[in-house]
């Protein structure tokens, strides 16, 4: 217990880094995911196929390989990102492919009459999607989106392999400096992640119930 209290400020500083990583990656993945999901649902195959390719390619890659790609290969291509930003890009782009599938399913679940009525009353295709279909789809997708974001928060721990000094990296440093308290230190990390993610899923449950009411 003393080991944790002594190293608390050091480890908690990483929690702030984790929160920044997760928040930026959530924003990036939401933008890309809604875009790819809307494209995936388009009627024109020239719009749809690139989106399908993007989604399938990313979903067939393990995240670790994707993170290493974003860090090492992008650097070779001349995009010399810091580990933090490479992590944001990797997590954001990776998660966007999963979000896109959820968005696509959400759009498909909006009754076609909504689409037809909006088009018939003179809205453009883009405006129908943005103003009529997407808002309804988003509400239905909320639970699936939250579990994807929880996955993203768990996944932030993986960017420690490219040297981002986030929460779990600091926990590991603490653990290897002490060497004698692996259960206390790693247990502390597990409890922190659990409280964060489980809490988030509870809040989402609440919101869901309220939306249904």
């Amino acid at each position, binding site marked *: 217990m003393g080991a944790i209290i002594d190293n608390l400020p050091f480890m908690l500083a990483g929690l702030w880094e984790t929160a920044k990583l997760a928040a930026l990656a959530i924003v990036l993945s939401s933008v890309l995911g809604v875009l790819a999901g809307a494209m995936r649902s388009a009627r024109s195959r020239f719009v749809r196929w690139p989106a399908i390719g993007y989604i399938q390619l990313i979903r067939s890659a393990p995240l670790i390989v994707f993170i290493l790609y974003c860090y090492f290969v992008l650097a070779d291509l001349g995009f010399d990102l810091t580990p933090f930003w490479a992590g944001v890009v990797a997590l954001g782009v990776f998660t966007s492919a999963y979000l896109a599938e959820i968005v696509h399913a959400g759009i498909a679940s909006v009754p076609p009459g909504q689409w037809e009525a909006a088009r018939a009353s003179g809205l453009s295709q883009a405006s129908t999607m943005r103003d009529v279909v997407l808002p309804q789809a988003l509400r239905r997708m909320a639970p699936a989106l939250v579990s994807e974001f929880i996955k993203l928060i768990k996944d932030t721990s993986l960017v420690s392999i490219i040297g981002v000094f986030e929460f*779990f990296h600091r926990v590991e440093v603490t653990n290897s400096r002490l060497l004698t308290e692996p259960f206390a230190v790693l247990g502390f990390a597990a409890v922190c992640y659990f409280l964060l993610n489980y809490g988030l899923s509870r809040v989402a449950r609440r919101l869901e119930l309220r939306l249904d009411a």
Partner: protein
Amino acid sequence: MFNDLSWSVVLDDPGRSFLLHGAWVSLQLAVLAIIGSTVVGTLVALGRVSTAPALAPLRWLLSAYVEFFRNVPLLVQLVFWSFGMFSLDLVRAVAAPLNPVYSNQFLAGLLGLTIYTSAYVAEALRSGIQSVPRGQLEAARAGGLGYWTAMRAVVLPQAFALAFPAIGNQYISATKNTSVVMAIGVTDLVFQAQQIESATFAAFEAYTAALVIFIVICLAESALLALIVRGMLTRIRPGARTAAPAPALES
């Protein structure tokens, strides 16, 4: 950089044998974790759907098991098993007979991956069990079968068939998740790719080779799973041959 690609670092030895060795390690991990997580996941799901009032504490414990292992990152769990549990003399002694074949890192990775995946399999199977009509269990019980026989012979086969698309997605996730074990020093596919990268600086070639091998394994796996789903559904519902949704590549 793309005008001087050197694919020979992955297509020729020693790179090639590095990658093939890594792929073999990843494949073993995936298969063993899938088998293990199915066994553990089934037991957890059975415990969670039990109704006996005396088993209420067990149900609480199992739901804590599922929530805990699903909400803590896999990497944290793997580090816990490898640097926590496998630092204990007792655990090392128990694992010692296996060490000629599997290193302690491998065993820690296998244990972590199995338990992590079992929580997801248990959830998928639980919803499969709950979507089997209650009448099936009641009829089997009324026909004279005991609770466990009715479960095993009547409810579980149907539940597995219904839940298998979801469970199959978890198997594919588990296969991709095997890559996380590189962080605890298991010499899996990604670990070997990283070795090649750090020896040759050919990042693109090394990681692309690993990625291609992963994609081939996962595509083969999802084709195999689709066949299994079809077989299962025909066995329980002889008319429903075409209704099987193929498992997609899931996270």
